């Protein structure tokens, strides 16, 4: 895991000039390089393409639509990079990246735009879950695919930001602060969204368990 970037900074005029350490955005060097030479945006693209694509797959439930949304997201990000503002805070954690949050906000808008024009197909997520490649261990693969299908089903029934918050938490492993920034909500609201999402998932899983018994 990459170490957090740190720099020395001094307090404002009048305060004791004691150096202190301030966190910098994890992607600062890559962002600076891409700003100086847009051809170097490729490093940021390769770092985040899978995450953005993954987010789009969960939101749209279709690989082709997800590819299209991913493409639009990165083209928009490249065009808007000169306007990107780094807003890293110490409380966001060691691995926080305001660039990632900014990128996911763009992805969220792109996805929302596509969803407005194109209705989600409810059967698609299940198809995707079943399309996971088979490893050599067939028995384990069956169990994993069943678990994936169950999880997919449970999450897919969640609505709007509740689903997004759960996906960002469990698939992208974002912190509550990062999810709050992506969804433009307070951290408390995100905690409640995830909590309620888990309650719904628990209900769904319980229902499936009773259905089998």
């Amino acid at each position, binding site marked *: 895991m990459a170490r957090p970037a740190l720099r020395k900074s001094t307090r404002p005029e009048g305060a004791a000039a004691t150096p202190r350490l301030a966190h910098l955005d994890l992607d600062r060097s890559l962002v600076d390089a891409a700003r100086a030479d*847009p*051809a170097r*945006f*490729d490093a940021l*693209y*390769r770092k985040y*393409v*899978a995450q953005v*694509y*993954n987010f789009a*797959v969960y939101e749209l439930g279709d*690989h082709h639509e*997800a*590819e299209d949304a*991913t*493409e639009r997201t*990165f*083209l928009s990000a*490249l*065009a808007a990079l000169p306007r990107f503002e780094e807003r890293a805070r110490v409380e966001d954690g060691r691995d926080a990246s305001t660039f990632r949050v900014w990128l996911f906000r763009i992805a969220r808008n792109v996805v929302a735009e596509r969803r407005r024009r194109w209705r989600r197909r409810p059967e698609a997520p299940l198809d*995707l*879950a079943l399309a*996971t490649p088979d490893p050599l261990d067939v028995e384990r693969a069956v169990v*994993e695919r069943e*678990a*994936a299908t*169950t*999880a*997919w089903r*449970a*999450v897919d029934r969640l609505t709007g930001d509740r689903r997004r918050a*759960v*996906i960002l*938490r*469990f*698939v992208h*492993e974002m*912190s*509550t602060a990062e999810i709050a920034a992506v969804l433009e909500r307070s951290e*408390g609201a995100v*905690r*409640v969204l*995830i*909590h309620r999402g*888990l*309650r719904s*998932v*628990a209900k769904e*899983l*319980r229902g499936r368990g009773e259905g089998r018994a």
Partner: protein
Amino acid sequence: MTFRPSARDGEIEAFVVDRYLESLLAREPRDTADIPVDLRQSADALAAGLPRYHPSFRFVEALSARLAAAAVRPAGAAPRDPMPAAIVELPRPGRPGDAPGGLGQVRPVVIGGVLTSAAISLAGAAYVAWRLNRPASDPMIRAVRAVARARLI
């Protein structure tokens, strides 16, 4: 004073669950005594069960190439910057009986340097006409002109 235990309890539980998720996703699950069993099981199922999808290699490379092309393009330029084809309306020969302003009277708009070249062309045409109609002094020139006229007719 109104006391709403359910909402407050929900917020506290949400906070406790959040702390548990933090440790779960850091692969260091902490004490789960405060977490309701069904919520813990749901969290474990999602953490283990939700698949991660990776885009195809072909797509990643194709988009990388598109981004590289977009990066070298000047800001504000269209993705493919085709030169718009100019539509020039050619003058049509006027026919006797055409109404003024009708199809036979369409005039091209002449701008800038085109006017100069058109003027030179007119002068050239007048010069050639004068040369052809000038009486020739040399018998050889007269013979050549006679042959040329015969071919034209």
